[in-house]
């Protein structure tokens, strides 16, 4: 069975082991290269372009992005099987956008299922539903961002409107095994109790969603913008305080969902 997926190729820029915040248990995250959105706060700007590029990291030029086969990635993923088994963990595809390379991503997820691994994708949900549908049978968990309920503001900060995202959320909620909604909490964009409540209420209205994660903005991506010679559009905006995150959490709680700060 596994042979049919082995030689499918895709483009990734990193594989990260021992991740404990993106899905249950101890996980390996495969970061796919290329994204449809250009979120101002994105902490992985090197993930956005599909083409392989150079960037400066710790004073040295490095190449970001490489083409790999599913077989190669699986070899790396399988090294940590004992950790997945002991923690109920598995594999999460992130990005970039996991929906942007469907042939590769679906093959990789299918291969994971052949080995009995738990699978998840972290996604913006910005794609044709016909694409998303291919992921559903082999993905145990969708970690989907809802960044804003207002489409104009969404477009202003991410370059894309949100209608298709909200529509997809409704469909995923009804068809996928499990959906968790995640909100990057970004000052000046969506960090008021009203905006967060609105997202929480939307998530609740999906019916099958029980959990919402609030992911506080951080500046860890700043150096990467410098390394890529790109402008960091967030400027000096400070990160949300613990207290403020608690206020937002309380606001979101009114929806009746479980609200978790961090993943």
């Amino acid at each position: 069975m596994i042979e049919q997926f082995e030689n499918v190729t895709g483009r990734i820029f990193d594989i990260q082991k021992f991740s404990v915040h993106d899905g249950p248990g101890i996980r390996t995250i495969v970061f796919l290269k290329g994204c449809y959105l250009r979120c101002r706060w994105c902490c992985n700007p090197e993930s956005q372009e599909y083409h392989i590029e150079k960037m400066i990291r710790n004073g040295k030029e490095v190449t970001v992005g490489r083409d790999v086969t599913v077989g190669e990635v699986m070899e790396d993923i399988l090294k940590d099987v004992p950790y997945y088994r002991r923690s109920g963990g598995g594999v999460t595809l992130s990005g970039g956008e996991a929906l942007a390379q469907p042939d590769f991503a679906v093959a990789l997820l299918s291969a994971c299922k052949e080995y009995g691994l738990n699978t998840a994708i972290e996604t913006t949900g910005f794609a044709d539903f016909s694409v998303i549908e291919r992921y559903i049978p082999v993905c145990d968990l969708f970690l989907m961002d809802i960044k804003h309920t207002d489409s104009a503001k969404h477009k202003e900060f991410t370059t894309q409107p949100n209608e298709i995202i909200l529509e997809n959320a409704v469909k995923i909620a009804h068809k996928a095994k499990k959906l968790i909604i995640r909100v990057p909490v970004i000052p000046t964009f969506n960090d008021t109790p009203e905006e967060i409540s609105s997202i929480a209420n939307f998530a609740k209205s999906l019916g099958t969603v029980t959990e919402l994660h609030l992911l506080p903005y951080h500046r860890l991506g700043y150096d990467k913008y410098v390394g890529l010679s790109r402008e960091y559009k967030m400027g000096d905006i400070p990160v949300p305080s613990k207290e403020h995150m608690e206020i937002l959490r309380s606001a979101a709680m009114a929806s009746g969902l479980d609200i978790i700060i961090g993943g």
Partner: protein
Amino acid sequence: MKKYTVTDIPRTERIKKLIDNLYAKMPVIEADRGILVTESYKSTENEPIISRRAKAFMHICKNIPITIRDFELIVGSATKNPRGCQVFPEYSFEWLENEFDTVATRTADPFYISDETKATLHEVYKYWKGKTTSDLATSYMSPETLKAIEHNIFTPGNYFYNGIGHVTVNYGKILEKGLDGIISEAKEALSAISPEDPSYIKRSQFLNAVILSCEAAEIYAARYAALALELAKKETDSARRGELLVIASNCSRVPKEGARSFYEACQSFWFIQMLLQVESSGHSISPGRFDQYMYPYFKNDLEAGKITREAAQELMDCIWVKLNDLNKVRDAASAEGFAGYSLFQNLIAGGQTKDGFDATNDLSFMCIQATMHVRLPQPSFSVRVWNGTPHEFMIKAAELTRTGVGLPAYYNDEVIIPSLLSRGLSIEDARDYNIIGCVEPQKSGKTDGWHDAAFYNMCRPLELVFSDGYDDGEFIGVHTGDVTKMKTFEEFYNAYKAQNNYMLKLLVNADNSIDVAHSERCPLPFQSSMVEDCIGRGKSLQEGGAIYNFTGPQGFGIANMADSLYAVKTLVFDQKKITMYELKDAIDHNFGEDIPDKIAEAKTQKEIKKIADSGKTITDSMIMETYKKIKTSGMQPYQRAKYRKVRELIDSIPKFGNDIPEIDAFARDVAYTYTRPLEKFRNPRGGIFQAGLYPVSANVPLGAQTGATPDGRLAYTPVADGVSPSAGKDVHGPTSSANSVSKLDHGIASNGTLFNMKFHPSALEGRSGLESFVALIRAYFDQKGSHMQFNVVSRETLRDAQAHPENYKSLVVRVAGYSALFTTLSKSLQDDIINRTEQMSF
């Protein structure tokens, strides 16, 4: 449905007071034991050594000052001052006499010593010249061995200068039968030997010594009973008077007779634990499976309503504090290697019963609780993990890890039990193992494991390959030929094995010489009385009285060796990117970097002395010139650039610790070059050698004696710690690092392996953090790793503690096989801890 009581028990006010009092002052060196042992020896000249030892122990027990400290519930102190130490001139003394004036101001483990004590000890030491175990051992070693030690290829310093220790006696038996029980057993054995039997002479001498030492311990306890009574009479506070009366009653009962309650059992345990460390200076006297042998007393009292859980917890906490009251002064060099005033009294909870069922009980949880309450380096607290270990026990242990105290260490039954079986233990004994000292498994009450027999620096034979057996201008190894003319990697690797095998033989000679010296000059009748089958065989532990006998020297530097050999193979032979000459040249010039100031100063002094000895006049400018030349190896900038390039090339190839099968296989093979030859050697007690792979903290001072290595490690910097990857070289997170380490054969290193990981507290946040942490341990153990320990502190915290030690007096870190107070460690060791890879999760 509830099987264990896992809820927290609060700490009492008393425990805080006991700890405050214990750490109020700098530890002091006391002379009493030194005086008493000398007096006794003078009066027993020409008697058999075993009776001299017993009589000396009796003389000490009768006369050493005793004290009951404020608020204590468990009594028995080896010194008048808290955390003081006694001296043991029968093992060695010159080093202390030489360091009288520096011991109070040295960086690692300083001790206060008064002028009066100095004068007294100076007198005492006159008697011991030529009479110590150390003197005798030296005279037994081959000239080649002495030369190898002088050149720091290995260091058998621990037992060379001190007692052996490293034992877990049969505590359970004493708790049940008392020392009177041992005395009757010895008497029975005595009456069973006929005088015409040729073994009568030695055996009866030994058995009489056993009886006398047990009586000595009983007298010692009786003195405490009298003192408690006397203090009770004077005590005005009625609550304290009541406590003192109970103490008096306990001390008049135990350890002479069997314990009738949990409290008596605690007191009995403590007298044994403490007196073993008065008889000999050996450290790592390990309490072992406290939760197992104490449990019946706890259960009985609890069920009979004689004790509450809280009261039992307080008694355990008192023992935990007392374990930190014992102390030991080591020579300056050893103090660096064992830094942190540690006595390595390893206490272990959980695991399996001898029948293979889960052994976890309420006391196992209370052991974790006690460590949380006291947050002190002792006991070196460990937990045993097997497939049947309850999850709630793992979570509670992880909570302890999260406090940042560096405890517990986790041990894997699924590796250790088969490993012990392969060394000839019965299945019941193997299942009943505990840990000695740092990481060394053994069966209590049956083993003389000599677990810490030496430190062996695996990088040093590699240096000898590059120099054809020469070190510092002297020929100390074997001839393996000109390294630059070697044609294949196999030839190079074989040269390493040749140098290594030669040094291992010398190591064995060193250990066996010391072993014989101990049996002839310092047999220990009290310790032997509590280990099988000394009474049956009628001989001491030091003469081979134990059922299981081993000698366990520790190798370290596997990661450096694996990376070095891989670099040589890849860059010189496979890819031919550099020649062996270029590599050797770069190593000789420390990859273009200066050598550390301190080393350069020492080398300059040596060089200048040589010049002075040759009769030349020394000028200031000559000193400066020499210093500069040594520090920079006389390099020009263009040379530096060339050598640095070599190092960059080395840095660019993969390293051990990143889950790369090819290098991991290399590391496994390198470890075999140490572990496999060793098990062929025999010790004088009838046992074999078995390798350990851990350095305690010796990787720092012994690294300071090691030149640059082909893995890019700079000269005189620390060598890799235990089986852990080289500091900063494992860059793919904890699972990759653990996977690499698990590829080594941990079972053959039956004297223990040590894998150190440092975690930022954020990695263990919340219940999910604990769950992931437990899963990490479980998964490493599934892959047959045998030991794991963690430092959970932030780099910033450590830096700040370094800058402001006054604010961090109680900051405990896991150094190697044990926990120590961070601020008491030397600067270089502190730096090493800070620089170890910090495993963060995102």
